[in-house]
């Protein structure tokens, strides 16, 4: 616990995570057992950690205590009356009784009181069977009620958002949901209204609870007052079977539990993983499971025949794909084959396809990033931070996308660090983001030109004596923070804020921070689910599995692989350009749709039109596979076991919950099948064998074998040598129920395998070779800085993502589809609108060097001047029609279509 003085008053109590190295332990006696706990920790938590469960409703480990429900009353020697243990910090010598007759009487009273108005419609309630109120009434309640009066009545469930229903009769006013919305999510859109027994949770007039995190209130509600529309009456708890897995809607990799009933996914709940998500999920992750059951899912291979795609058997389709690959290879060589995508799959998929492409076919034209990422050498080579580093950082610098839109749970973690832990926050960017309100310094720049402001910031952070005005609040916050946190890195959240500009400028800005001598560490903010796993396992030009370059890893891999490419291949943009130009004859699309996903839509269209052969692996049909020779249907999240790597490089286990409909296959298995048909047996029969091979041949994955992946509860951050202590802790906590960091986690049963020893570090932990400081070298060879705007009429395009767009998860999940906007809009601020002289919502012509399209213009006050914002994940016509991948920035001219209205006087 930090040395920040803690008030006795609950309302002033500020929960903060214990800070290592600053912990004073005190002795507390709980029910006659003397235990040690950090001074100031809440009594209820200490008791729980040592195995005494004190009943509670309002207390939640990740939120500040309020003491609203009075359920956690205990007796504390020397204090008058009973104390609420959720708001009583422990002090030296405290003697606590949790089960005395007085406490029992109080618990009976509280439960009887709560049940005066709580309806007994448990049989129809979605919470019935897993309800804290049910459970604790049974365990601690009086058994009977003296109240025979009519209970209060409200209209049964009313929607407070498109996803969440509120049953006010069932509410016990614990305030978990309102506190979550205000404290954790920062969207205070619900609150209490009314008094006494007519107190109810309300939304504000005309404003629904449209938070990206609204599903969390359903999960933390201790009764069935808040229920999810998607799970409403779908199943009862005893129907469900669950598996722990990682979310794959973005690259944060939140841990959660996937529930299914009758082979249908029905629910996804967050699991409290200390290093990753703290139990929270965003709504896209929580309700995005629905797309797995979309009726348009591909479930049989398709081959091109008679001008269309027709169903075909697996052996035939595999034979056809093999002959296509062999044909192109024989006629044009390996370099005529390009492999795109792979960032949506598992690590096993990525490895098997990297091995097929590079080790069997021998092409290095492989890229998992579709022009929307950062150069692979930067992501792999930069000094990586973990999410937990945010909490102990000296400062956090945001140099990337709007985290609230792209990596929502990372937004929660950054927000918590900034708001609850007082970590100073710097927002560098072209337009406002969800985190801008919490930033001490907001550094705005023209899109594509972050270097000047970054230089200024780097100099100030490095201790330059003069303090620029705009950075003064930041530097003061850092000084204040230094009182409790002197050391600690500056964590830079690095990503692409706009795909309308090249990555160069962002990387150069990152290099400035890396070289400033401020011990900067980088947290990648690339949003695609498993893009980091794909890069780590060699789905990038010039790299081999295990974060090694072709040159560094050639000798080692040649022992297992048939061949290793001689020279570095092409990235996605060049692959598509060469496919359009005819040099690349075969494109393999690994669960990707370049026409929709690549920033330069025109180039992608040309490429897929001109390329001779396409082999596509996907779970849905899409525009890009229209000219495919073979389409393989693949298993997806929830149907396939394996592992993924998140933004930190944390390898975590994916669980399988359902058997897919139809005949689909894991992408890694398709790779092994194709390899066998090409005359090269990979000898991989199960996902654990793939994991073990990765641990054997990929240097960064040394030690991360199938056993470690299945046992490390929070996964393992690569390289394990740097994080051995954390992994040891994770493994050792399996045997200790004392002071476990999380809640409700059970070790995964393995099939009779011997388990890692008590707290033993996995064997063979060696430090893998690191690519030499790639960030600096890349920055040096990058092209020169972007020019200013072309002319004073132009606006510069920012093409960013929003959480709900035209992506598969959103459009194929009925719950989310209704939240999504799929048509593109041109967003400018009021002054730019006035300069154009058009009305809000009017359609204007948008002209870039690439093409000219018509879009409705919408006023958005958060967009700065000289900037036009078009979300990239929208249906055409949209941003991807405007972007030319060869240009470093995209400047727009806007013309009105209507005649100017001349006011008659």
């Amino acid at each position, binding site marked *: 616990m930090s040395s920040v003085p803690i008030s006795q008053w609950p309302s002033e109590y500020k929960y903060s995570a214990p800070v290592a190295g600053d912990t004073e332990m005190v002795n507390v006696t709980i029910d006659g057992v003397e235990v040690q706990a950090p001074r100031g920790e809440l009594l209820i938590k200490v008791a729980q950690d040592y195995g005494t469960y004190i009943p509670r409703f309002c207390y939640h480990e990740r939120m500040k205590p309020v003491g609203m429900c009075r359920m956690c009353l205990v007796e504390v020697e020397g204090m008058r009356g009973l104390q609420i243990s959720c708001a009583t910090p422990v002090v030296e010598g405290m003697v606590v009784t949790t089960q005395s007759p007085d406490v029992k009487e109080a618990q009976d009273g509280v439960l009887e009181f709560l049940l005066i108005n709580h309806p007994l419609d448990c*049989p129809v309630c979605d919470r019935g069977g897993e309800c804290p109120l049910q459970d604790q009434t049974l365990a601690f309640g009086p058994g009977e009620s003296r109240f025979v009066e009519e209970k209060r009545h409200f209209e049964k469930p009313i929607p407070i958002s498109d996803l969440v229903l509120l049953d006010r009769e069932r509410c016990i006013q614990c305030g978990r949901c309102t506190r979550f919305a205000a404290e954790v999510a920062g969207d205070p859109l619900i609150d209490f209204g009314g008094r006494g027994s007519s107190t109810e949770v309300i939304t504000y007039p005309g404003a629904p609870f449209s938070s990206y995190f609204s599903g969390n209130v359903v999960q933390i509600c201790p009764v069935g007052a808040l229920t999810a529309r998607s799970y409403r009456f779908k199943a009862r708890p005893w129907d469900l079977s669950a598996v722990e897995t990682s979310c794959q809607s973005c690259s944060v990799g939140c841990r959660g539990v996937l529930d299914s009933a009758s082979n249908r996914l029905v629910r996804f709940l967050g699991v409290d993983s200390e290093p990753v998500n703290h139990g929270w999920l965003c709504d896209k992750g929580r309700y995005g499971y629905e797309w797995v059951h979309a009726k348009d899912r591909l479930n049989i291979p398709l081959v091109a025949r008679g001008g269309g795609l027709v169903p075909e058997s697996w052996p035939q389709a595999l034979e056809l794909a093999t002959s296509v690959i062999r044909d192109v290879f024989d006629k044009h060589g390996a370099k005529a084959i390009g492999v795109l995508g792979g960032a949506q799959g598992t690590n096993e998929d990525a490895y098997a396809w990297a091995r097929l492409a590079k080790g069997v076919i021998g092409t290095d034209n492989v890229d998992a990033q579709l022009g929307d990422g950062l150069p692979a050498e930067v992501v792999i080579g930069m000094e990586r931070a973990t999410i937990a580093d945010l909490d102990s950082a000296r400062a956090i610098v945001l140099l990337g996308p709007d985290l609230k839109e792209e990596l929502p749970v990372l937004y929660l973690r950054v927000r918590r660090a900034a708001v609850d832990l007082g970590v100073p926050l710097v927002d560098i960017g072209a337009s406002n983001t969800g985190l801008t309100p919490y930033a001490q310094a907001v550094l705005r720049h023209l899109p594509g030109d972050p270097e000047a402001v970054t230089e200024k910031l780097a100099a100030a952070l490095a201790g330059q004596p003069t303090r620029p005005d705009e950075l003064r609040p930041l530097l003061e916050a850092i000084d204040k923070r230094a009182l409790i946190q002197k050391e600690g890195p500056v964590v830079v959240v690095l990503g692409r804020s706009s795909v309308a500009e090249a990555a160069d400028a962002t990387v150069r800005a990152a290099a400035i921070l890396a070289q400033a001598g401020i011990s900067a560490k980088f947290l990648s903010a690339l949003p695609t689910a498993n893009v980091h796993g794909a890069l780590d396992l060699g789905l990038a030009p010039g790299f081999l599995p295990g974060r090694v370059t072709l040159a560094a890893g050639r000798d080692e891999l040649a022992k297992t692989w048939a061949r290793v490419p001689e020279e570095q291949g092409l990235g996605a943009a060049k692959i598509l350009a060469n496919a359009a130009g005819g040099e690349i004859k075969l494109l393999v699309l690994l669960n990707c749709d370049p026409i929709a996903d690549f920033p330069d839509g025109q180039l992608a269209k040309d490429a897929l039109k001109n390329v001779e052969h396409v082999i596509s692996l996907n779970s849905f049909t899409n525009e890009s596979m229209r000219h495919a020779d073979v389409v393989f249907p693949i298993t997806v999240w929830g149907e396939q076991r394996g592992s993924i790597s998140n933004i930190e490089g944390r390898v975590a286990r994916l669980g399988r919950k359902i058997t897919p409909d139809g005949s689909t296959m894991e992408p890694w298995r398709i790779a092994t099948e194709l390899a066998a048909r090409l005359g090269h047996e990979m000898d991989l029969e199960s996902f654990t064998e793939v994991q073990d091979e990765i641990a054997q041949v990929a240097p960064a994955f040394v030690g991360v074998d199938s056993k470690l992946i299945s046992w490390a509860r929070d996964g393992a951050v690569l390289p394990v040598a740097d994080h051995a202590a954390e992994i040891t802790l994770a493994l050792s906590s399996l045997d200790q129920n004392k002071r476990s960091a999380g809640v409700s986690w059970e070790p995964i049963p393995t099939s009779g395998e011997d388990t890692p020893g008590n707290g033993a570090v996995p064997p063979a932990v060696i430090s893998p070779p690191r690519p030499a400081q790639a960030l600096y070298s890349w920055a040096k060879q990058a092209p020169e800085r972007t020019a200013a705007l072309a002319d004073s009429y132009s606006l510069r395009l920012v093409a960013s993502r929003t959480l709900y767009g035209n992506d598969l998860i959103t459009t194929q999940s009925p719950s989310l589809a209704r939240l999504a906007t799929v048509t593109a809009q041109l967003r400018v601020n009021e002054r730019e609108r006035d300069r154009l002289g058009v009305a809000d919502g009017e359609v204007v012509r948008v002209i870039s060097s690439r093409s000219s399209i018509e879009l409705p213009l919408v006023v958005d006050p958060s967009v700065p001047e000289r900037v036009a914002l078009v979300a990239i994940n929208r249906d055409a016509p949209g941003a991807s029609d405007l972007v030319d991948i060869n240009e470093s920035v995209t400047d727009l001219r806007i013309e009105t279509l209507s005649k100017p209205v001349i006011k008659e006087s």
Partner: protein
Amino acid sequence: MGKFSGFRITIAQVFKPKVTGDYPNSKRPKPERFHGRHVLNRYEDGMEKCIGCELCAGVCPANCIYVRGADNPPDSPVSPGERYGFVYEINYLRCIHCDLCVEACPTEAITETKLFEFSFTNRQDAIYTKSELVVDDQGRAQRQPWELWLGDEDDQTSGWMRATASAGQAEFEGKVGWSGELGVGVRAAEPSQDKTRTAIAPTSEPEEVALG
């Protein structure tokens, strides 16, 4: 008597009262809490009692019940409240007639008749769906072609037959602890354990029913 001496016992039986019945033309009365084929009851106004809570499915040791709930359509609700039994199936190839479902049911929706004479020629017929289980508009069990029903055999089928009826406690004596149902109304209170009081319910002495 010679060759007839061996028939002594047989012939003696001829003049004794008959203990066998004319089965299957008539059936013997079954015990009050006999467990037969299930029905899904309805309230007096015709609403279904089942709310799709799946407690029966949860408690079923043979795993033979499959229930799924759904939102009651607001303009034509199937059951009172928010939720109704959208799917209700019992697989009689699995059912062991233990009656735990009947005990678990919070609304007296599922109860058992006295009928056990039903045989199927295919497995599909063995899975009773909601359309077969729910009582008809007169509140009586629907009679399937492969079931042997005689007379008013299905009279003794309803919520008041539950094994957990609260008649055991003195303060509930004579009090009705169940809801009314379609075709019958509210059944009278159960007979007291005090044998001197006469039973009010139509359960006094069931008579043998003849093929109707």
